[in-house]
């Protein structure tokens, strides 16, 4: 497992992540924030991934929902695409991300963050097997 560290309480962690999301740390290709600013439990988040260039995801903005359960960050969050996407590991009919197919979700560590998850998904978009997948028309979302 990870190196022994102080276990940061969940809410502290999430607040940190919230702040980071608002400050726009990072390269600007992913973004995340609370779905509802009044959500005191800091459970439901929205994320955004900007499709990488030179892939079939290019030019698109993918919206996601991330749910950080009560045991986060010890347990991985559940992730779901709202915008329709065709990608390995993503359920075609409802956009849920299969935790077993995404490496960092499958091998989650408590040092991982929402940002990392989004960035990883974006990275996977650039993989050979995903980058050329034909995508649904832009702007469609899953019905759930």
């Amino acid at each position: 497992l990870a190196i022994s560290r102080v276990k940061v309480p969940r809410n502290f962690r999430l607040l940190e992540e919230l702040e980071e999301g608002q400050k726009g740390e990072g390269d600007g290709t992913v973004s995340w924030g609370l779905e509802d600013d009044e959500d005191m439990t800091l459970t439901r988040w929205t994320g955004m991934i900007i499709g990488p260039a030179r892939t079939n995801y290019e030019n698109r903005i993918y919206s996601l929902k991330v749910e950080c359960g009560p045991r986060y960050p010890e347990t991985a969050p559940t992730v779901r695409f709202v915008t329709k996407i065709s990608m390995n590991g993503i359920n075609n009919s409802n956009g849920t991300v299969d935790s077993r197919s995404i490496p960092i979700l499958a091998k989650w560590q408590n040092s991982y963050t929402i940002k990392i998850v989004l960035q990883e998904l974006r990275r996977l978009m650039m993989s050979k097997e995903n980058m050329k997948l034909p995508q649904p028309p832009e702007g469609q979302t899953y019905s759930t």
Partner: protein
Amino acid sequence: MADQGAADPGNNNNNKPEASEGTIIKVTVKTPKDKEEIAIAEDASVTQFKEEISRRFKAKQDQLVLIFAGKILKDGDSLSQHGIKDGLTVHLVIKTAHKAADGGSTSASSSTSTQAGSTSTSNPGTNPSTTTGSTGSAPPPTQTPNILSKHLSLFEKSGLGMGSANFMELQQQMQRQLMSNPEMLSQIMENPLVQNMMSNPDLMRQMIMANPQMQQLMERNPEISHMLNNPELMRQTMELARNPAMMQEMMRNQDRALSNLESIPGGYNALRRMYTDIQEPMFSAAREQVSVRNTSLHSYSESGAQPSRTENREPLPNPWGPPTSSNPSESGGGSTGSSSTTAGTTPSVSNPLGINPGSLGNGMFNSPGMQSLLQQISENPQLMQNMLSAPYMRSMMQSLAQNPELASQVLMNNPLFAGNQQLQEQFRAQLPIFLQQMQNPEALSVMTNPRAMQALMQIQQGLQTLQTEAPGLMPSLMPGGIPGIPTGGAMPTENPASSPSSAGTNIAQQQLMHQMLQMFAGGGGGGGSTQTPEVRFQSQLDQLNAMGFINREANLQALIATGGDINAAIERLLGSQPS
């Protein structure tokens, strides 16, 4: 600038906030390439914000997409609604024909990690680009129904491309047939024995480990042993083996991965190397393995099967699985009296049992395809040897030996025996011995040794001559037995041709068969047939006569030499005497 309308005291730079009391906040607007600080009123709307941005970034407003904290800012919203405060950053995407935030920045090594990350969920660390060849390669046929190893599929292609001996092609054909006949495949798969075997990872592992060559291989490639020891993987592979659809899926994945690999510079060489390093030993390992159980499939799977290993090799479910097929066609025809068993391989050249690709049917033996195959085989002793040493052949024979019922069934179907009760009886009695003989490695090696076979043939011919010259001598030879069978191998094509004729010479044949069996049981010796060549080749002679070859002597000689093969005999005749 001073009074551009709405002269507001708080009017900064290029900003026209509507509400005069709005505090100006500085918001960073970031694109992947660019970053700008924009001052705007706290309570401005997104639209206004966008106006500002479009000026700064020199883009049209409707090209702008603003994202903050994971949400897209819609024109009707206000900044405060989203909690955008001073000092915070908003992401901007400028939609051009082909822009979209260039994501290059994230995860540099995406391409490499791609393979690792993205590919097949179930790929525990197989890295196609590893040259060391994580696994053994799968030998010949790509289409093995049982893909036990994903890794191996890598090698499938290499195996396929490189080095197909005739035998391999044969195998491939068989497999293809098998593949194209899902029913058969599922039948085989459903064989409880197979399933049992497959569902027992330990067993599989043991089998694999038991093979010394495999052990060697494992030493050289520790990954292989890892794979073997990974129960998860083994189970998966076995499942795969059971599920043809899955297998095909996997094969496709593998193929794709493999082709990817090929496109890497130097990749093809790597593949080749892998193949040579791994596949060869694996293949020979496979061949040496002796099946421990009845099902040919079983043994076959052993060979290929190291679950992780050879995807392809993997159990080629023996299409001629003992229980199912049994469509012996006679190979030896009358003279050799070889009874056919359902052993798998097509060319039954040296196979006295007339091992025949029973899988697909009767009379297959008589088809032109078979004929040419037989010829091919006879011309290529190596091929024969390959065939015989094929694991499934062995297992075939073993299973036959163990299952006299089956064997007798098979044999009984042989048209040779069809109308002939007596012969059948005889044969049945002989069966156990016969089968035992087949097991005898000695016998097998004799069969595979072309020179030995030739010798046998000569002996047979000698005996035949002897018969003609001194018929009285023959009876005394009978008990001695005749290894007509091995010799029969040399005269493959005789079968179909001679079978009809043999039917005519029934009794003689019976005797012959009897003798042969005894012979064989006795371990083979020199032999000939009890009938004179004339009798045996009666119909051929007639045919030759009809064609205009009137020299009976010569005809006979030719027929004897070619073992009853009319075509070959004709060629001989034409060669020796221009007619």
